[in-house]
């Protein structure tokens, strides 16, 4: 007997019970799965960056190519340009979300910021991202598994390489005075705070439910257990009936109570970030959003962390800032923006929620269409087996 034959004695046949159990697991997984396409690189079209050599300032690119830049809302057919059955390529992205794994903890690590225009007494104006914050949140799937909230402040910084050049010409100021939330505030270009642990002994296992109203205050968001979340349907139409419900009592659209496309986008974005949706529910919700009227697919979008992907964009909305709350003259005026959800085309994961300038005006008169005016970028998100911890490294 040679050594190869001798090793065969280590093997054994599976018991019928073991073989049947494994097959049942596979069948359950397969029954819940959506069809997929054979793997190929999702084609990201070459596009002209509005900001030129955006990668020079690592991670600071606020470059967005707006393929559909008309401010006049021209609702496309549901699902994307031309109403193609695959949602203009988006359905491929949604299919990738089917393949994401599950685990014991759901976490989201999110970096956010808002653009502010700096107008030096002499020299060109430039824009910065201020109010930059990183927030880390996790929730266990089970009630006794815990929940954690952590946050830290990140430095303000010029928004694009061009802005960085103008900032240097202005003497590289280390702080920025901005008009924010109806008052002046100063952001530092150097200040980073340590992580603050805001966890208050939550037991975990409770998650925000679907918010039909899209109420930013979160008032109508009854908690759901992981089991209830897991029991959500996977069918896009059934999910639309749960998530995109008009609310006659809603305040945000006086007289109509109708969920605008931008509100639907926000509702879906919040659910994708904060609810432990099983992969097939996530994919179903992405498909449901893509099918809504006033939502279209946009390719070649990037977030302020420099990550490119495919976005779902809501039809633009026009904002007018008045002097009512004391805004100085240069902060008043009218501009058009739209909300976008940016997805990683390779994995289907949500990368960012963006507000993008469509028609410059008012406080953003000096900016170009496509500029990101505020962002919530998901630095990492998803299921883990181990209890997640906030990262030590800075995002930029």
């Amino acid at each position, binding site marked *: 007997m*040679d*050594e*190869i*034959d*001798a*090793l*065969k*004695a*280590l*093997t*054994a*046949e*599976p018991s019928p019970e*073991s*073989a049947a*159990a*494994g*097959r049942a*697991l*596979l*069948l359950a*997984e*397969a*029954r819940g*799965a*959506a*069809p*997929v*396409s*054979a*793997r190929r690189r999702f084609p990201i079209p070459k596009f002209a960056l509005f900001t030129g050599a955006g990668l020079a300032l690592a991670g600071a690119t606020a470059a967005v190519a707006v393929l559909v830049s008309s401010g006049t809302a021209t609702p496309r057919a549901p699902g994307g340009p031309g109403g193609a059955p695959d949602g203009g390529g988006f359905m491929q992205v949604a299919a990738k979300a089917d*393949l994401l*794994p599950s685990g014991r903890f759901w976490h989201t690590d999110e970096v956010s910021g808002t653009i502010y225009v700096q107008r030096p007494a002499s020299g060109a104006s430039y824009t910065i991202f201020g109010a930059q914050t990183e927030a880390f949140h996790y929730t266990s799937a089970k009630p006794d598994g815990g929940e954690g909230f952590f946050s830290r402040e990140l430095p303000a910084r010029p928004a694009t390489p061009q802005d960085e050049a103008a900032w240097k010409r202005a003497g590289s100021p280390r702080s920025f005075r901005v008009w924010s939330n109806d008052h002046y505030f100063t952001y530092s270009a150097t200040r980073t705070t340590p992580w603050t642990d805001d966890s208050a002994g939550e037991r975990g296992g409770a998650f925000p439910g679907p918010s039909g109203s899209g109420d930013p205050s979160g008032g109508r968001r009854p908690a759901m257990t992981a089991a209830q979340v897991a029991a959500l349907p996977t069918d896009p139409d059934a999910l639309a009936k749960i998530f995109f419900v008009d609310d006659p009592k809603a305040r945000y659209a006086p007289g109509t109570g109708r969920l605008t496309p931008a509100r639907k986008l926000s509702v879906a974005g919040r659910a994708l970030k904060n609810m432990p949706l099983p992969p097939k529910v996530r994919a179903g919700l992405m498909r449901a959003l893509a099918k809504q009227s006033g939502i279209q697919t946009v390719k070649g979008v990037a977030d302020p962390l420099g990550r490119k992907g495919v976005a779902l964009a809501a039809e633009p909305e026009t904002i007018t800032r008045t002097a009512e709350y004391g805004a100085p003259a240069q902060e008043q005026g009218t501009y058009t923006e739209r909300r976008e959800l940016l997805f990683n085309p390779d994995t289907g994961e949500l990368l960012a929620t963006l507000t993008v300038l469509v028609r410059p005006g008012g406080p953003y008169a000096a900016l170009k269409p496509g500029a990101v005016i505020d962002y919530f970028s998901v630095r990492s998100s998803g299921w883990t087996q181990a209890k997640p911890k906030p990262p030590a490294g800075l995002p930029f």
Partner: protein
Amino acid sequence: MTAPPAVDDDAGIVAASLAEPERFTGVYDRHHAAVYRYVHGRLGPQAADDVAAETFLTAFRRRADFDPARGALRAWLFGIATRLVAQHRRTEERRYRALARLGPDRPHGGHEDRVAAAVDAGLVKPELAAALRGLSAKERDVVLLVALADLTHEEVAAALGIPYGTVGSRLNRARRKLRAALDSPEGT
């Protein structure tokens, strides 16, 4: 099996499962026993149930990545199984250590180890199990894919993503070490 006669080869079943996920059970029906035997050989009965099942779940989730041009499905499955086995290094180590201890004069390991090893008692020479512990992880992957899974050199190369020539050299090295253990006076 639910696969209709029109699709009766591995690549065809995987292709069909892209649009009809349940068709992937055809892959399970064809290959589960072989994958189980291999995993059992490396990790023992307790871990084999889970790891063999996990191999097919992983393969199913990645089925869109399977490229028939890069090798047979069998090799791809055993590549997945081997990567999962690698996540259970301690289990594998414990198994060989326990097998190596079996014998009249050898001290037994803990209760758990004894139970796991008892299944194979008398089948595998303790010296061989001890020699397996002396192989590098890379040598073990190659020699056990050949011995336990009956993979050809080409299939091993595809499964592990290593050059064909490397399979031969690692296999020769591993076999020499194992043969030396079997030929030792104690092992006869």
